[in-house]
């Protein structure tokens, strides 16, 4: 029991991390795309747990709302739309592009490892409350995100709205019934 309470955070971390990776493996091994999507949902939930564990509570909540909520709905709709449920059950597990995928995975992993190392080395007095500080006061993660984002990252924040706008207009153009036939214009017909 003493061991459990002393290493509580580490134990929770490893449980969440193992489950998150297991979910990721499930995504690429399940034959049924809906099962893959549910597996991905598991990964999203575990990552949200990891964020909360690291005292990035706001990010954890966003992970739940946007990924487990919105993005998941999007994925399920896409599965429904493109009819991948008819995928042949004996489709090849590894495609010819597998080496490329492995390469990009390794590069991405190395980048993250580098980022973590650089972050932990160059972090002046981080500590447990580093993500909850507002002007030297410990407030809360949401407050800290709000302060940092809206005080110091004005331009990136406004650019986010442009990115969202592009996504929205792009989806509307793709969703038009005559997409690609007549170019532009025209209301969507039922």
């Amino acid at each position, binding site marked *: 029991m003493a061991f459990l309470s002393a290493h*509580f*955070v580490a134990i929770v971390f490893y449980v969440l991390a193992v489950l998150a990776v297991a979910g990721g493996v499930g995504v690429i091994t399940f034959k049924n795309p809906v099962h893959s999507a549910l597996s991905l949902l598991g990964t999203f939930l575990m990552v949200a747990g990891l964020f*909360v564990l690291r005292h990035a509570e*706001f990010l954890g909540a*966003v992970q739940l*709302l*946007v990924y487990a*909520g*919105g*993005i998941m*709905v*999007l994925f399920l*709709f*896409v599965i*429904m*739309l493109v*009819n991948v*449920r*008819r995928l042949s059950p004996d489709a090849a597990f590894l495609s010819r592009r597998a080496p490329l995928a492995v390469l990009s995975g390794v590069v991405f992993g190395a980048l993250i490892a580098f980022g973590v190392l650089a972050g932990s080395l160059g972090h002046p007095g981080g500590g447990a409350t580093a993500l909850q500080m*507002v002007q030297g006061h410990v407030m*809360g993660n*949401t*407050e800290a*995100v*709000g*302060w940092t*984002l*809206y*005080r110091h990252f*004005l331009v990136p*924040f*406004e650019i*986010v*709205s*442009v990115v*969202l*706008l592009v*996504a*929205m*207009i792009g*989806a*509307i153009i*793709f*969703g*038009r019934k005559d997409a690609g036939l007549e170019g532009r214009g025209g*209301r*969507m017909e*039922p």
Partner: protein
Amino acid sequence: MNQYIPILIFTLIAISFPIITLLLAKLVRSGSPNAVKAEPYECGVKMPTTAYDTRFSIRYYLIAVLFVVFDVETIFLFPWAVMFDKLALFGFIEMVVFLAILLVGYIYAWRRGALEWA
């Protein structure tokens, strides 16, 4: 970590509620399944005869994308709202610009008829 105990209890209750409900229902109901009962049914909608061969309208995708975009927009309002006092007028103008840009998208979606279903 102690402040998460209520969340843990809440999660456990939320998980056990459907399990208990289903188990209770299984105990009290009479089971006599037949082919008609097992058919998929939705009120007012003609169900496809085979579950996997139906094509769905691209509109579902459009609605999902619009949902995600406005979901993210709302997320950005949360940290702004909790720091509203401190950010003062600067933060207010910042958010107005943000919302104004997205309003362009909303009006575009509206004018294109992307929000109409029928």
